[in-house]
């Protein structure tokens, strides 16, 4: 079962790095969409089915925090799995993001670290034997 992922970061380089890391992580990937700020991210969510959003915090036009608030306010996206990928490691901010139901990955990150956070949040894991994605028991119902 493949994950459709949205990557939201104002840095094109960082978006490419995240996508590359996702592919190296071994998790089953479907479509990968990119957006340069929170507003573009919301537009992408309106147009595409997304299972997981990886979102930066500090972005122009609309920040990651504001985007997450809008996502949670919309019944169609309220349950979207969200992981914040940021340099910001303030405990205050991380706690606030966790209250919004978001996971957190600190930059710089490794494929293993990203995979672990994604697996924990989505319940999807990489099956090392078959190379396919599997749903762990603690994951959401599909």
């Amino acid at each position, binding site marked *: 079962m493949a994950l459709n992922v949205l990557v939201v970061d104002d840095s094109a380089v960082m978006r490419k790095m995240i996508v590359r890391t996702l592919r190296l992580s071994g998790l089953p990937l479907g479509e990968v969409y990119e957006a340069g700020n929170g507003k573009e991210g919301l537009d992408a969510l309106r147009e595409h089915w997304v299972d997981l959003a990886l979102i930066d915090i*500090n972005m122009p036009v609309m920040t990651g925090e504001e985007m997450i608030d809008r996502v949670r306010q919309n019944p169609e996206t309220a349950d979207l799995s969200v992981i914040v990928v940021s340099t910001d490691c*303030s405990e205050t901010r991380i706690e606030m993001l966790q209250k919004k139901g978001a996971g957190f990955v600190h930059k710089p990150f490794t494929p293993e670290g990203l995979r672990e956070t994604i697996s924990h949040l989505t319940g999807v894991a990489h099956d090392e034997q078959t190379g396919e994605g599997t749903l762990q028991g603690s994951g959401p119902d599909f």
Partner: protein
Amino acid sequence: MTSKLEKELYRAAVLTFEELGLMLPTPDVNEEQQKAATEATVTIPFDGPFSGRLVVTICGDVLGGLAANMLGEDEASAHEHRDDALGEIGNVICGNILPRIAGARDVFDLRPPYITEHKEPRSEGEIHPPAATAHVGFDSGRADLALYVDSGAVTISVECNR
């Protein structure tokens, strides 16, 4: 004598260049590296319990390889992303150093990085020296870092063992 703050700045820079840029620093900055010409400078302004900016200057022939490493492409393909790559390096260094000097619970807002091709001119507002500097050597050049804190800011102390 190198201050604790400067050691933390150096540590944050080395970590970022190694893990994000896949570039290993040389043990020190030799004469040739010191003479390397400036390639580009990135400034990352920040606001929070105190405000200021981090300035990272890349010298020599570092930027092309850095962007290529980050993108997993050859230097020619990565050329158009060099400024973006440097901006992201600066962002990550800044994001990592600020909690070390302010505290784990303090929240900072980093503003978008901006690139200049020369060292930052010291003509904007009050001229004051940086709170900390660090220098990281690479095979093909070096990176100079300077952390500026606006005047009137709180006393900075470095937290240990975070």
